[in-house]
């Protein structure tokens, strides 16, 4: 049982500040539109222990990430979870996200996702609900880069999606 996770939903005023290496609930997703490859390249960084908790609660309490106990099934769950929580519309239409793989960077899980065949980018709608069902204060930050602009979105449970328009 992960008491403290459950209690977080309870806690209106988290005492997370007391700690050092812990604990602010943030993920960062970088989306880059590479026009010559007609590709939306997505890199999302999520705290490993947070997503591990989400997967354990959802699918299987024995799931272990970034340890010797990690199995191939775990990777499938990571993929399943991320693709369920991250949705993108390009020019108003939902697009298919191709999960390429993941790696670990200290305490972060870094997942790589691609959307292919994007010939023109007029608008981009991003919905990122990753970990919001776990932590009410989860913030998912989106940084978007196109050949001629940079934009950011801060998504939280009140506003889990946002639209960026390009002229």
């Amino acid at each position, binding site marked *: 049982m992960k*008491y*403290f996770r*459950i*209690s*977080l*939903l*309870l*806690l*209106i*005023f*988290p*005492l*997370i*500040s*007391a*700690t*050092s*290496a*812990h*604990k*602010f609930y*943030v993920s*960062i997703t970088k989306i*880059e539109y590479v026009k010559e490859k007609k590709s939306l*390249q*997505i*890199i999302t*960084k999520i705290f*490993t*222990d947070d997503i591990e908790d989400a997967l354990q609660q959802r699918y299987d309490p024995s799931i*272990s*990430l*970034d*340890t*010797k*106990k990690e199995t191939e099934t775990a990777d499938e769950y990571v993929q399943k979870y991320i693709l369920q929580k991250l949705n993108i519309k390009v020019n108003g239409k939902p697009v298919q996200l191709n999960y*390429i*793989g993941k*790696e670990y960077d*200290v*305490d972060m899980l870094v997942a*790589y996702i*691609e959307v292919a065949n994007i010939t023109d980018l007029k608008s981009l709608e991003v919905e990122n609900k990753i970990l919001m*069902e776990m932590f*009410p204060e989860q*913030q998912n*930050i989106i*940084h978007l880069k196109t050949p001629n602009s*940079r934009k*950011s*979105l*801060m998504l939280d*449970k*009140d506003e889990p999606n946002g639209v960026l328009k390009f002229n």
Partner: protein
Amino acid sequence: MRLFNSFLLTALFLLAGAVSAQDETDSQKREPGHYNTNRFKQLYEEFSTPNMFRTASGAPGPSYYQQQADYVMDIELDDKNKKLSGFETITYTNNSPDVLEYLWVQLDQNKRAKDSKSPLIEPSDALPGDMAGNFVKNYMGTPFEGGFNILEVKDAKGNPLKHIINQTMMRIDMPKKLSPGEKFVFSIKWWYNINDHVVDRARSGYETFEDGNRGYVIAQFYPRMAVYNDVEGWQNSQFWGRDEFALPFGNFEVNITVPADHILDATGELQNRKEIFTKEMMNRYEAAQKSYDKPVVIVTQAEAEAASKGFSTAKRTWKFKAENVRDYAFATSRRYIWDMMAVKMGSGSVIAVSLYPPESNPLWEDWSTRAVASTLKTYSRMTFDYPYSKAISVSAKNQGMEYPMICWNYGRPDKDGTISDRTKYGMISVIIHEVGHNYFPMIVNSDERQWTWMDEGLNTFTQYVAEQDFGEEYPEAIAPNKKYPSRRGPAKNIVDYMAGDQSQLAPIMTKGLNTYNFGANAYAKPATALNILRETIMGRELFDFAFKTYANRWMFKHPTPEDFFRTMEDASAVDLDWYWREWFYTTDYVDIGVKEVKKFYVTSKINTEARQMMEANGIKESDLPPLVYFVREDSEDFEESMRNVKIEDVKTLKEYIADNIPVEERANLKNPSYFYEITFEKPGGIPMPIILQLSYADGTSEKITYPAEIWRKNDASVGKFIASEKEITKIEVDPDEETADIDTSNNTWPKRKKLGAFDQFKNKTKTD
């Protein structure tokens, strides 16, 4: 003659533009004037005027004072009912020049009282759903009966004192005003229900182990004096739960009564060790005092496990004394393993200690005490010799929190003994961090209620230095990594935060309660700013001396942000007003790039541009002194033959050298034949040094750093004209990612697209 030449040149090339600009504005409406908005403007408006308490150099002034609060306390833990009660006598000394009408005492436990206002200042919204257990607790259960029960407040003669409680602050009205130099003695009797810190995510409380035993990490447990000083008056800003503490120094005599089978450690020196320790424990303790390379176990895992099976109803009192500490805390459980190791400190030694349950092994027995020892060494090198006798690391399930000489730290193996890298590094990092807090803010006693960054930022910076040292001291702990994988400190790690949505950023100089992203704002950004200051702006030698000066000036005193800013400049002669302003007072970010590079060649033949300027100013070519002209590669004056021109082919130069340079010196002259005008752009607000790496056709390279002051007159773009003997093939700004540049796509010439992280990963997975 010389004068004339310089004048002509100035008139011709430099003033030409200015004069024509003047003509233009004359015919238009004049622009209004403006205030000084220069990024290099002095910080006089942000800083208060230095005075007799705090000097302009950043040191304590001749009238600096601080209050003293001494405590004598009897504390008792009721393990069965999870209650803590106490009787304390406070002797408060008014060292200020002011007459005090009343005293303020902090009641931090009231943050958990049923009528606490902390939950009321947090907006809440409907969740899509909630767990059944939470629903029952939130909407159907009764809230925790937390908070202080103040039974009596009395003066030294035992007469009740008038007092009023406003949330987490209690005002004590003294029978008569307290004059400078006077002492006031009073006592408080109290009790409270101890909270489950695991459920609460609190800084103190108990956790229940699977066998039903509890581990208590107890802090903020007694009514504590507030700080009175020259900058805040009474620091009685409420404890909402986030911004930590402001506490005066004092001496403590504390008797703590717990079940007889508990193992306990606390702030201060144990006075009745012989009464409490068995002979075996005493022998081990004596061995630990001489063990500098590995911890000696005082209470073994087997002994802790055996004790865990009982529940003693007998009591035992642990007696401690602590001098010159700002706070007091202790940890107690019958399930604790206890180990210690000696650390050389100055001419003597101090002791590194760990307390942990069997749940924390294997891991804590290997690294906790060693991490404590390593931290003390690094921090003492960066500041001052650790002045206390010991530093304790206590294993708490999921929190890290610091007190004088003692702290709680998370990080335990999985139940099957698996230790992931993030558990191990998380545990070592949090121990380094929390033990490091002994220096900031326990000894360099800043006001955490007001300025979170002053202890968290300085401490997270020093933590980075200590983590790197730990990696060097214990390579086997970090293998296969070659360097300790620090999360906070390196410049590039702060880029994601600083590039974020501006509506969600706050300057570092913001009260913690009012920041959006607390961890990045109060810990990571100031730590990174200091790391960049050390590595890139000041250099280690100047920075380390100034940082150490600050620590020593304010050791056992109460500094403000200005005292830090002023000292860093005072001890280094590096003008840092611009750095403090940009990094600490704004949410600006760094983005510097190469905008344009133009190539030039030299000739003695006048070019079109120069001719036009000359004619516009009514000067004849024959009036000019001998000149060397630069011809841009893409201009109409450029001729292919110029490419191979050598310096000695330029007539005017050749003549000048023949007339002015003695023959024997000519061999020493450089022979530049490649000329470049580099234009740098600064889309970001923060001016930073331009760290330029020039790569040459012969495969060599060179680094040039232009100080940040290059931006003082033009905040958007600046140029540099470079004369080189070798052809430049590549120009790169900030090649080692040391400035936290948020966009590196404009950092190179010729524009070269680096293979991004995405493509690198994709290529790697393809080949796998």
